């Protein structure tokens, strides 16, 4: 080995470097090399440790006082930087030794090869110039455009670089390949990871993958990585796959899941499904449970586009024709919240303040109140307490806007019978409308088919007609 060559070699690579962002700027120790270029003609005068591990890498601070004594030059407050942890895999001595063995005998590797930009003045010292490192190693590409396989040339894996702090991990640069279309898909980074060359491990560890991959415990490529919480310093945020934004995705996702459950399993746990599909369809069992070793999975904010404005008021028709579609997202309990109302609730289906509008809404029957409310348990109970209903014959005093209401109540009854029965009983009406007692007024109106009714439920006819049920 040519010791002279080695002695010139290497050099100021010691001025550190990290993966990204460390390739420019003056030294981290704030020492202005250019200003001192006439004082220190060669690197090893100060950085003897580059070639001799027994000696320090940086000069002693007291050495500055040789000139900076307050007389010749002003006093300075300089201190040698502490050892800066890095993810470089070499020492200067090793690098010098190996390069010495590989390079032709008449060539030399000087400090400036790595620490002074090509063509620049001597002593324009920079941290590791990765482009020059790569060039020397035969990689003709910019640092983050280099092939993934080139990482190992200079770097340790994240798990090996145990001293590298989390903040430095967060500042890692991103390879250009990560911005390519399709990189986030299984055909992109998935295929790279499955290649098994361990490239991902230079920046990532298992914890990073588990941010998105809820099936991390089942993915070999992920399990091949070491666990390292520092990898969480790189945040992953995924957009939903394009398929999820298609108009009918919600109605089709069940079939897609059955055809290829593994695709869903990357981001979804059973909890993603059973949050909605509480009936646990079989396909759910193909997905992993959340729990130790995996995240909870994708959070789903679901609202089909066709719900739109005011869907609550018009959800009935589609729900009637395809209740299974609703049950993909809604639980039966959700339906019961409105369709079997909670007496303690203050507004759910109905808007705030509906109490004030309910008489009009009920009277004009915009919707079918009895689909959700039992007339006896809800309407009559409340009206009785409010003094609007009581058993027995009721005089028309309440309807005092119309002095002849009793004479014309038949029209109101046929139009709004559901409202009438929230205050009035059958007995009230039979006072007059009975064939056996009262005044014998016939209550039957348009569309009444006595023969049909007699066949279905003669007891109902007997309520007014006794045993003398007329045939027609």
């Amino acid at each position, binding site marked *: 080995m040519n010791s002279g060559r080695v002695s010139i070699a290497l050099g100021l690579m010691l001025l550190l470097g990290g993966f990204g962002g460390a390739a420019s700027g003056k030294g981290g120790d704030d020492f202005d090399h250019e200003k001192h270029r006439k004082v220190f003609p060669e690197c090893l005068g100060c950085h003897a440790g580059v070639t001799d591990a027994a000696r320090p890498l940086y000069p002693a601070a007291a050495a500055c006082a040789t000139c900076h004594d307050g007389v010749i030059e002003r006093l300075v407050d300089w201190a040698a930087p502490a050892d800066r942890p890095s993810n470089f895999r070499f020492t200067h001595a090793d690098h010098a030794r190996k390069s010495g063995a590989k390079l032709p005998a008449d060539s030399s590797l000087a400090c400036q090869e790595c620490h002074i930009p090509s063509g620049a003045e001597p002593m324009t010292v920079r941290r590791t110039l990765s482009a020059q490192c790569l060039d020397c190693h035969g990689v003709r590409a910019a640092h983050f455009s280099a092939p993934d396989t080139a990482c190992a040339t200079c770097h340790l894996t994240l798990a090996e670089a145990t001293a590298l702090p989390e903040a430095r991990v967060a500042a890692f640069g991103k390879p250009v390949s990560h911005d390519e279309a399709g990189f986030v898909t299984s055909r992109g980074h998935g295929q790279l990871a499955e290649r098994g060359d361990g490239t991902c491990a230079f920046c990532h560890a298992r914890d990073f993958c588990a941010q998105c991959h809820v099936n991390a415990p089942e993915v070999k490529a992920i399990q091949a990585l070491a666990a390292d919480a520092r990898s969480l310093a790189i945040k992953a945020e995924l957009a939903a796959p394009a398929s999820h934004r298609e108009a009918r995705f919600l109605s089709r996702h069940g079939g897609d899941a059955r055809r290829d459950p593994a695709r869903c399993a990357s981001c979804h746990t059973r909890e993603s499904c059973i949050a909605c599909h509480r009936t646990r369809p079989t396909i759910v069992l193909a997905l992993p449970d959340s729990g130790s070793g995996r*995240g909870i999975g994708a959070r789903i904010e679901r609202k089909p586009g066709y719900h739109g404005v005011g869907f609550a008021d018009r959800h009935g028709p589609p729900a009637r024709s395809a209740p299974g579609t609703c049950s993909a997202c809604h639980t039966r309990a959700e339906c019961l919240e409105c369709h079997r109302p909670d007496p303690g609730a203050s507004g759910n289906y109905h808007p705030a303040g509906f109490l004030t509008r309910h008489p009009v809404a009920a009277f004009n029957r915009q919707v079918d109140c009895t*689909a959700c409310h039992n007339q006896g348990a809800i309407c009559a109970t409340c009206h009785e*307490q409010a003094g609007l209903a009581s058993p027995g014959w009721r005089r028309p005093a309440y309807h005092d806007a119309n002095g002849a209401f009793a004479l014309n109540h038949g029209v109101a009854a046929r139009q709004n019978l559901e409202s009438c029965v929230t205050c009035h009983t059958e007995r009230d009406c039979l006072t007059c409308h009975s064939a056996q007692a009262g005044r014998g007024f016939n209550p039957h109106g348009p569309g009444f088919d006595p023969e049909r009714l007699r066949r279905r439920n003669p*007891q109902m006819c007997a309520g007014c007609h006794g045993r003398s049920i007329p045939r027609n």
Partner: protein
Amino acid sequence: MNRGFGWGALLLFAAPVAAVGQEYLLRLDTRAQRVDYRGLEEDSIPAGEVVSGPDGGLETPDGHAVTCIGESYCHFFRAGPVRQGAPLVTSADLTAWGFGVTDLSLHANARVGLDLGTADAWPGSDPAVQLNEGYLQYAAERVTGRLGRQVERGRLGSYGHDGLHLAYRFPSLDLTAIGFAGLGLARGSALPVTSDALNPLDEFQPRERQLLVGGAIEWRRRGVDARLDYVREVDRDTRNFVSERMALSATLGPVSGWSLTGGADYDLAWGWWGTADLAIRYGGTRFGGSAGARRYRPYFDLWTLWGAFSPLAYSAVNGSVWLAPVRGLTLRGGGERYWYPEAEAETPLVGEETDGWRWNAGAGYTISPTVSADVGYQVAFGPGAASRGVDGSVSVRPLPMLSLTAEGGYQVRPLEYRVEDPALTWYGIAVGLRPAERLRIDFRATRYDENRRRPDASAIDWSQTRVSAGISWLLGTSVDRLPLPPAVRREGRP
């Protein structure tokens, strides 16, 4: 204590026990309300003591307008006593699985409801424990079976029953066949029709629960959903029909954003068509709307006499539109006009109203991700009732876990053939707090100030303040474990 009370109590208190060693999801909701209000009280006065009021009408000496119909006493309504209602309701919704049989699960939805007020008459709080649903389910790829208390939902409404439900899917035909049978519950209730709680006015009531039998056929192909329903109820005591109905529903969605829905039900017992509707809808990213026609006929079981009074169906045409002209702003509007046929019960002395209409308009504006506002105007006019009013709200979310809403409105609502044209102003606040992912707390206070603009003493003060608070808690064996940061995904947000 009825059987429902027992089932409900068992499931409510057994839920945490059943969850041990199993996988489960349990949602607990507790809500409380408090309101003081004043109703009416019927009274009478000898006809001889009635005086003429300033407008010439008859009234009591202290100013209550009276109704006298050829009897020795005239009748009127005066202010009733102040009543206090304070319902406290706790409900539990449980899904449990992991019983060693794949696809087997247990579902229960029950509530405990008490009225802590002096009137002890809050609607729906009797009996205190009610089991809405409680069934064991086996749901495999082709077969779903449920056994226990459950609710069947379809175009014919919700039918609760204690019985068996079976569904079988024919994937090659895109068909699902459904059948169910059991002892029925009353409509809109978790109680049987024999329950005293459903009969506060002492109506005629069946002595036995009805037998419920029904089925449905669902057909689903891309862009088409259709369902045919059939339900029959039979009185087990008399063997007479309680109901027999069938219905057809369909939704067509051949083009993205467009849908055509329609359906109708036919009452086989009465022999007449019931409710029907047909509507075409469009929902895009910037605007949408609908146009349709419908018909509404009330439905009554055959064990009541009400159907014999020939309730009329009305026919209606309607439409709605919404528009998002700029980001965050949504404008909406809709209307309906409806007609009743001849009632064949007219008298020559009184005119008959046979039509009505209603429309509404409103706007919602999301000012920023944390501030939004909404305002709406509604008008309704129909035989016997009308209203017009405006309401609005402003919601602010100063913290991700906290939402504050101020709301209010004003409304005028003459109704029920009664001499009143009350103007009602209401306003209130609502607070929503979500201190943890699976814990929600809310509070609402609303004040109603009513001015019953009657010319007589019956213009009582109905004004009231309602206060409510609630808490919802979701528990589960694994869903609340977050040992690793969750993935952050954004699903189709604009």
